[in-house]
């Protein structure tokens, strides 16, 4: 549903507003990196704008800190509907290493509804491009939850008891 909406609404271009909510600058540098001629995100029609009122999407980096919390909310409300939120970096996706510290709300999704998560500390420019391409429906999602299960001991219960009895000479001695 969301993908279709993205495709229809943002077919030509997404104007993004980059919002730093307490990032260490690592993620911001990588966001700037995708605007350079080498990665050149503008070939997707993505343009960085200075005001949230012009934007379709919001790139948020950094765990939302307490001082920036009301400002982030106001910036989010200023973006006209429909809007997309990208959480960029581990800090934005889940709070990073400081998800439970006193001054941090712990991830953007605690404050706003996030549409796309791009984890990494900082994410590679390719990873950010991948997230953007995912939102535009150009690539498929590669991540999936992993479930691993360890099997029990190789020793079957019956054979285990047998092996134990064979080796358990103490009963023989007591007889």
């Amino acid at each position: 549903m969301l993908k279709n909406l993205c495709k229809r609404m943002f077919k030509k271009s997404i104007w993004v507003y980059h919002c730093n909510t307490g990032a260490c600058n690592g993620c911001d540098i990588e966001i700037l990196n995708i605007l350079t001629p080498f990665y050149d995100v503008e070939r997707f029609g993505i343009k960085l704008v200075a005001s949230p009122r012009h934007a379709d999407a919001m790139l948020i980096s950094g765990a939302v800190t307490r001082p920036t919390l009301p400002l982030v909310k106001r910036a989010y409300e200023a973006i006209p509907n429909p809007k997309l939120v990208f959480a960029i970096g581990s800090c934005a996706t889940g709070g990073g290493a400081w998800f439970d510290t006193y001054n941090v709300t712990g991830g953007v999704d605690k404050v706003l509804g996030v549409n796309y998560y791009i984890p990494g500390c900082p994410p590679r420019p390719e990873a950010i491009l991948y997230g953007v391409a995912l939102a535009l429906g150009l690539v498929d999602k590669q991540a999936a939850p992993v479930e691993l299960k360890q099997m029990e001991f190789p020793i079957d219960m019956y054979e285990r008891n047998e092996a134990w009895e064979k080796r358990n000479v103490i009963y023989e001695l007591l007889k």
Partner: protein
Amino acid sequence: MWLTSKIKQLLMVMKPGVVTLDYPNERPPVPANLRGQPVFDHQKCIGCGGCSDHCPSRCILVRDVCQELRVMLYDGSRCTYCGRCADICPEQAITMSNSFEIACDDKDDITTRMELFMMSCQRCGRCYEMEKTNAIDRINLKGFRYDNLEQRALIRKTSETFSTELLKESDNYQRPSKK
């Protein structure tokens, strides 16, 4: 003047040609030392919880469901890909893979859940202690392999199915010594 400078600029940019990487269609090789998402090997993991203790973002959670089952949950949304868990793991059960294209629209997509089978006494809940060695001898042992069954005649190894070869192999098993 204006025109000549423009021509000069044009010549300047013509020399390198197109530098832009056509990313989602053309993938450059990843650097050899890239640390991506950690990958867990449940066959090797012994459930010691060392990775969980050393993770700076506390994103590996250890939960004991019951006495014999330990569930480890890796929450990739907080992971900073520092590689400390892989460094600390005594069994090398964690490797830092080079996958970084893990953008998703659901946080659950970047989690790993591991169910580990733990060996402990059914009565007291401790690990088995069946060695008759002294404390100095025990230092030689690899700590976590210590809790073996039946007078260390059986090595604790996991396999997908029960194999008699593994049992036979473990019949005459002697623990490695430094001599």
